């Protein structure tokens, strides 16, 4: 035991490990700065997109409620629209950083409250869907890459590609038709929409089960459509590895095929996949927006599509900021994990 500890201490001082620490630090710094830059970009974009509205924003935003000049003035003052643009930008920055995303034109409540309210259904939906799509997708990717050219591969890839080609909301509609309305022999066992039944009592087991039941179809929709993304990424990533010589080495060592696959090929192929999967989260979020619409799930996506019809600019801006920030943070996280897992990041 003692000599192991001694070795550990010894190893910690080899230039290799020291270099690694330092370079991971640099890597983290680089990624964090990059993400911060992206956030800043989103902030600026959020500001300018909503100030280049054609016409008088006060009149547009007032939705025809305000007819007198005084009312318009008051409205402008409320939203700071009477100030010069740089001043508006500063206020915007200050407010955004203090969590003030403005007040919904429609609901007259702080946008941040609305978003907080709507966040968790989306998180639930996107989270579960991403998790499942990743796990299943990666599994399918492994299966089809490992059996490249065989029937398994062809069927898997063909099916996922077809699903990938579907607009997710269209698939959602068909799934509702099939499994919520019921079709032929299929009973309509799933709810057609919403996040929970009217009579579910919050906080009970039944409520959780009920919510789960409501999530089945929307999650299934997202998973089916985005499965292909992940499985194709994993497939090509693993195919990259399959030609590598170190796998031959592993086989030569007397490892079983499954062990070679699991311990060497898949593990290595998963590394670059993490960052690619993180990039796909943006797509899943996009998909969630339409799926929420089809399934009437009161999440951020639904909030955004509703805001679209008004249009409730502050809500649009808020959801844009929050979803973008979420995706950027998810990406950062994936990159950091990748940096931790892959010793090669510094090269």
């Amino acid at each position: 035991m003692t000599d192991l500890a001694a070795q550990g201490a010894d190893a910690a001082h080899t230039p290799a490990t020291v270099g690694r620490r330092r370079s991971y630090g640099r890597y983290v710094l680089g990624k964090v700065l990059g993400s911060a830059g992206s956030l800043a970009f989103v902030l600026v974009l959020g500001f300018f997109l909503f100030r280049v509205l054609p016409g008088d924003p006060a009149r547009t935003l007032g939705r025809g409620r305000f007819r007198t000049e005084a009312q318009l003035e008051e409205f402008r003052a409320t939203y700071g629209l009477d100030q010069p643009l740089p001043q508006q930008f500063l206020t915007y920055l200050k407010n955004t950083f203090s969590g003030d995303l403005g007040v919904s034109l429609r609901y007259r409540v702080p946008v941040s409250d609305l978003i907080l309210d709507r966040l968790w259904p989306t998180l639930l939906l996107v989270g579960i869907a991403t998790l499942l799509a990743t796990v299943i997708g990666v599994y399918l990717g492994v299966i089809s890459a490992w059996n490249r050219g065989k029937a398994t591969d062809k069927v898997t890839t063909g099916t996922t590609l077809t699903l990938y080609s579907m607009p997710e909301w269209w698939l959602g509609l068909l799934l509702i038709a099939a499994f919520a309305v019921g079709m032929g022999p299929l009973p309509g066992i799933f709810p057609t929409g919403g996040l929970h039944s009217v009579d579910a009592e919050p906080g009970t087991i039944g409520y959780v089960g009920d919510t789960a039941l409501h999530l089945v179809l929307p999650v299934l929709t997202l998973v089916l459509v985005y499965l292909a993304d992940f499985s194709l990424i994993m497939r090509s990533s693993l195919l990259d590895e399959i030609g590598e010589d170190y796998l031959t080495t592993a086989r030569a060592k007397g490892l079983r095929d499954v062990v070679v696959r699991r311990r060497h090929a898949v593990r290595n192929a998963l590394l670059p996949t993490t960052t690619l999967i993180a990039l796909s989260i943006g797509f899943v979020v996009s998909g969630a927006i339409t799926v929420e619409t089809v399934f009437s799930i009161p999440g951020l996506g639904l909030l955004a599509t509703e805001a679209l019809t008004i249009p409730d600019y502050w809500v649009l801006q808020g959801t844009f900021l929050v979803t973008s920030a979420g995706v950027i943070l998810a990406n950062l996280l994936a990159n950091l994990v990748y940096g931790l897992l892959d010793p090669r990041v510094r090269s």
Partner: protein
Amino acid sequence: MSAAAVPAPDPAPDDVVLEARGVEVEFVTRTGHAARALDGVDLSVRRGEVLAIVGESGSGKTTLARTLMGLERPTRGEVVFGGAPLDYSFRGLKAYRSRVQMVLQDAAGSLNPRQTVYESVAEGIRLHRRDRSDEQGRSEAELVAAALAESGLRPPERLFLRYPHELSGGQKQRVLIAGALALRPEVLLADEPVSSLDASIRGEILALLLRFRQELGMGVAVVTHDLGLAWNIADRIAVMYLGRVVECGTTEEVLTAPRHPYTQALLSVVPEIEQLEPVVLTGEVPDPSRIPSGCRFHPRCPKLADGTADRAGVAGDCVGTPLPVLPATGDHRAACHLA
């Protein structure tokens, strides 16, 4: 088939075409350290001579060749061509490169996979409009054909439409040489021209270089770590270690009577049946970002380790006194406190 033996010409010392004067090249590595890949190199290439630059991996051979080509700008010192320092402007470099050419280390990678042999060879001709200035009034295609034929690819037309992946390693190397040759350079730099090739093919390529030197009076600088190759074709040898030339002289002098312990060690490990006593240096090539004090070779020097230096009374110098840069004269010299 071995090429006909060619007698060694007498390179006149004043025939220097291309010269490195105190060239120093520093790279900034990713960790922020400065790595001095070249640390003061004086070296000259003369008209009609074959100069071999030898040394271990990482000793700076490629960097030297690239610097001579103007691909790397020396942080100190200068490259002198035809008596004038190199002009690094776009026009200057272009003009320079029509007179000095280089064959890169990696033959397989040096051909654009989407260009045919014809296009690859014609590229230089087009860039420098050689078909317009050709004395014999040959067309571009004729020039390409001639260059390929000269490089031993006959009949050239058969190869015109080939893509690199349809060529063998030796053919690729010859296409590259033909491309450089089509410009009729005064100096040809060849970086490891045969190390990626099969044993049986290398003879042909080497013979080719010898022929150009002979027929066209071209100066050739060959970068290699293979001493046998140097013995085969070089008139002069410069041995490099950690960014410096540590020994130079004619091939016979350097390879039969090496003065520097490093050269001696290199020579001793050339695999042969009847071994000299091999002096296998331990350790890797030292890191150019941490050049040892005194003689840069001293941490690995067998003469220092076995006490020879101590007995000669220079051990202290070896560790503490830096050696001057070897001048680029034709004499046999070694940068060693013992020599």
